[in-house]
């Protein structure tokens, strides 16, 4: 036996917990906060690190579209119950996490299927400054 650890939680453990909460909040602000929800949403599908689809959410077909990766196939379809979004309706992957994620509707949200190595992300329009600042006349 190298060393018997302290077995009762104390304020120092609380400090570690607070640190993890702060880290989660900072990550949340940095990752979720940067995705403005203005304008048209774009569905971006990648498989094995390669972008295989980039289409406007409104233009995505109503019939399910199949994407394959790493020997698995995902059926991706749109949901119009309430706000328009996208989901994995059927998958033959072993974990089914992609199906359980449900419908994503906001910019920055992702559905990730690790066994199939497929990710489906909703991208929003960013204020990149490419467009005109002012239109006259």
């Amino acid at each position: 036996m190298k060393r018997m650890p302290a077995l009762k939680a104390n304020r120092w453990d609380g400090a570690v917990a607070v640190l993890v909460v702060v880290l989660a909040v900072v990550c949340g602000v940095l990752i979720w906060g940067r995705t403005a929800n203005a304008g048209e949403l774009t569905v971006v599908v990648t498989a094995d690190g390669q972008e295989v689809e980039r289409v406007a959410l409104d233009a995505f077909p109503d019939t399910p579209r199949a994407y394959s990766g790493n020997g698995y196939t995902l059926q991706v379809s749109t949901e119009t119950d309430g706000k328009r979004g996208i989901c994995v309706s059927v998958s033959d992957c072993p974990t089914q996490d992609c199906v359980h994620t449900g419908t994503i509707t906001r910019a920055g949200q992702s559905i990730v299927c690790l066994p199939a190595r497929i990710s489906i992300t909703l991208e929003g329009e960013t204020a990149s400054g490419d467009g005109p600042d002012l239109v006259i006349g």
Partner: protein
Amino acid sequence: MKMKTKQLTLCAVLTAMALALSYVENFFPLSLAIPVPGIKLGLANIVTLFALYALGAGPAMMILIARCFLGAVFAGNMNALIFSVLGGVTAMLVMILLSQIRKLSVYGVSIGGAAAHNCGQVAAAVLTLGNTAPLYYLPILLGVSLFTGALTGLITACLFRALAHTHLMRGE
């Protein structure tokens, strides 16, 4: 030589226990309640944490690597190896550092390890998928690690209390 054989045997038993716990936690699919890819209770971390205090950092790291490799072989899924190794090693390094702070109990060390494990797994997912989409789940995973880390810390504390008066803890 006697101690070496005893320590080797203990390492083998702990590796087997970690593998068994990895299998058992499949019966508690946390992802049904929180649909996040790769989310787990992390029960095998009980063994890692126990080994860290009972045997030291070196043997604990060996048990971890053996568990990750054998787990991938038995599951027939070598793709999962990068996730378990990156998550496990990150967690181990953080727990080694935190265990040096004598004022921290197993709870603090366990929570820090669980958070680091999730960070490592998200990094593995980013590397595997080739994009940053998995980062979306990092804040949720960090929040969940508070509960999973506290749970594994609680079980580890119970384990140490139960074994406190055995010859194993007295180092005989």
